[in-house]
């Protein structure tokens, strides 16, 4: 798989895109927050402090950070169960996300949602959905509401290469293009639907082409290059905001960890993962450019790392200290309380 990625001329080398010190430092910091947060989540899971399912975003940070930096205030985001990175990118509090992972009252859903099910009205984050592909039509519905209300917002519906084979995705493509909805379909192609590679599951593996029969323009993007992601995101979001309807962005990316915490990862080789981590890491790429351009030195990077480690440690501390939900919470929020 890694060879295949590298074999693609377009993706072999990170395209050098214009940026500056502040901009690249912000992107670096945002990606690093997700990486360190996820590492901590993995650690807490190993310690038995997080129960159930936990899907880490490590390796894919450039996708959500790049897209978030292409969005403006009012734009919405919705995604699947690999959602921690999306929430942090949206500006949701690391404490609230971590406490939801540990199932505590201080979590975004008072511990009742868990890793896969968190929301924020304030940050326009519409979840966190545990059913593969189910968030895609909902994302188009958000786009419909934007168009109907005339609020100029664009909805971003993220889903994976596995979800790209769900039927309701194609029902959604049809309606989104038919009605010119302001929605961007972001396919995070991390190459594996759990343990099934794209080659073993998909007749057409170039997922950006999946909208062709609906007349939806698709673009393949180096999802390990945060600047390339943002560049593609800006174009696509402008397209939707200009009333031209949806677009598909296929982000070629890679997850380093298993599908979830209980994944033995027998479907790929250690060398493949090692190669991706060593040669294509989205955070390392930004780091080396920061150093090359002399926009940072090892000390300044260390300072950022320290600051982020403190935020993450604080979130973990909060998540372990926050009480468990009271039994009376079991019956709250089933229906609107009268």
């Amino acid at each position, binding site marked *: 798989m890694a060879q295949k990625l590298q074999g693609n001329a377009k993706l072999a080398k990170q395209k050098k895109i214009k940026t500056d010190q502040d901009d690249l430092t912000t992107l670096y910091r945002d990606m690093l927050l997700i990486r360190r947060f996820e590492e901590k989540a993995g650690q807490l899971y190993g310690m038995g402090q997080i129960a159930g399912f936990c899907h880490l975003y490590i390796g894919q940070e450039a996708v959500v950070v790049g897209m978030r930096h292409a969005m403006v205030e009012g734009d919405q985001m919705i995604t699947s169960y690999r959602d921690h990175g999306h929430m942090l990118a949206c500006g949701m509090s690391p404490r609230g996300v971590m406490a939801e992972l540990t199932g505590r009252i201080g979590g975004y859903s008072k511990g009742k949602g868990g890793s896969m099910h968190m929301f924020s009205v304030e940050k326009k984050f519409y979840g966190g959905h545990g059913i593969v592909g*189910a968030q895609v039509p909902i994302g188009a519905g958000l786009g419909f509401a934007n168009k109907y209300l005339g609020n100029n917002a664009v909805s971003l519906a993220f889903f994976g290469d596995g979800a790209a084979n769900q039927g309701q995705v194609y029902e959604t493509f049809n309606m989104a293009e038919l009605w010119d909805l302001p929605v961007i379909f972001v396919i995070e192609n991390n190459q594996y639907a759990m343990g099934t590679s794209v080659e073993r599951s998909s007749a057409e593996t170039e997922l950006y082409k999946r909208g062709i029969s609906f007349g939806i323009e698709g673009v393949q993007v180096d999802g390990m290059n945060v600047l390339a992601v943002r560049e593609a995101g800006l174009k696509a979001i402008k397209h939707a905001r200009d009333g031209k309807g949806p677009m598909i962005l296929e982000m070629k990316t890679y997850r380093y960890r298993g599908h979830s915490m209980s994944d033995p990862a027998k479907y790929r080789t250690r060398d493949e993962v090692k190669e991706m981590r060593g040669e294509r890491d989205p955070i390392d790429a930004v780091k080396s450019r920061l150093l090359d351009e002399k926009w940072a030195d090892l000390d300044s990077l260390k300072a950022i790392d320290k600051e982020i480690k403190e935020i993450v440690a604080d979130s973990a501390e909060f998540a372990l200290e926050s009480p468990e939900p009271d039994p009376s919470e079991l019956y709250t929020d089933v229906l609107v309380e009268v």
Partner: protein
Amino acid sequence: MARMNMIEAIRSAMDVKMSQDPDVLVFGEDVGFFGGVFRCTAGLQETHGLHRCFDTPISEGGIMGIAIGMAAAGLRPIAEIQFADYIYPGYDQIASEAARLRYRSNGEFTAPLTIRTPVGGGIYGGQTHSQSPEALFTHISGLKTIIPSNPYDAKGLLITAIEDNDPVLFLEPKRLYNGPFYGDPHAPAVNWSGHDLGEVPEGHYRVEFEKARKIADGDDLTILTYGTMVWVAQAAVNDLEVSADILDLRSLLPLDLESIAESVKKTGRCVILHEATKTSGFGAELMAQVQEHCFYSLEAPIERVTGWDTPYPHAQEWAYFPGPIRVKTAIRKVLEG
């Protein structure tokens, strides 16, 4: 007051709410230009515009998902599923998304969405145009399930559904669209114009959920039913000249347990009727509730009259349908028991 059949009453409810609230939208397969396969949405597109009443592709999963997204973003969508038999591709969205958004978002998001769909047999639709799948939905917490039996209730309940902040499944017994049906397919058709409940206010009114309607008042037994079977129950009770409480439940979830318990404690005998298949049907839930709340008042075992545990047959439609003969047999049995 105007005279309306159930189709007109349902249309009037949507018309009233669309006039009052620009966030109310109506859509589904053939609901716009065509006006709906049963004509429930006829004229709404002309009155309220193409942007508020429109056709969708034949994509039930997509329709449900898009409606949920619209609702979560502040609109009040009314999605029609052309027949309840077509709802299954959308079941995932209803069960896993619409019904659960609130619980897993700490009450931040909900889906104030109304799903309208015709149910039940009696029009020779065969197994894919006759089903009554209510029990598949009453099994889901976070969703309300409503089923009217007459034009007056249909309009008031639908307005309440549209105004409700939770997702509501609104089941329309298609055999009752044009008139009450007393269970004899060979009797001349009756329409709503001759019935009290066909008198419907033209403007806004609500019929609240969780309140059963007492169709008949009596002392010998209680009949718990809803939808088409309400009128079959009435015909059977009239034929036998027994004194029965007939409760039209109208709102299956939330359920008016208070009225049920009060009636059964008074009569001590109970018959439950529905058109859906028996095993794990909503009647099983009703039996359990009656047993839990009225055990020491019961004088006889509770009887259920339901569709058979088979797919809805085409040619043998009236052998499947729990008509007055089967209802009368059950009434006699609980009275003798």
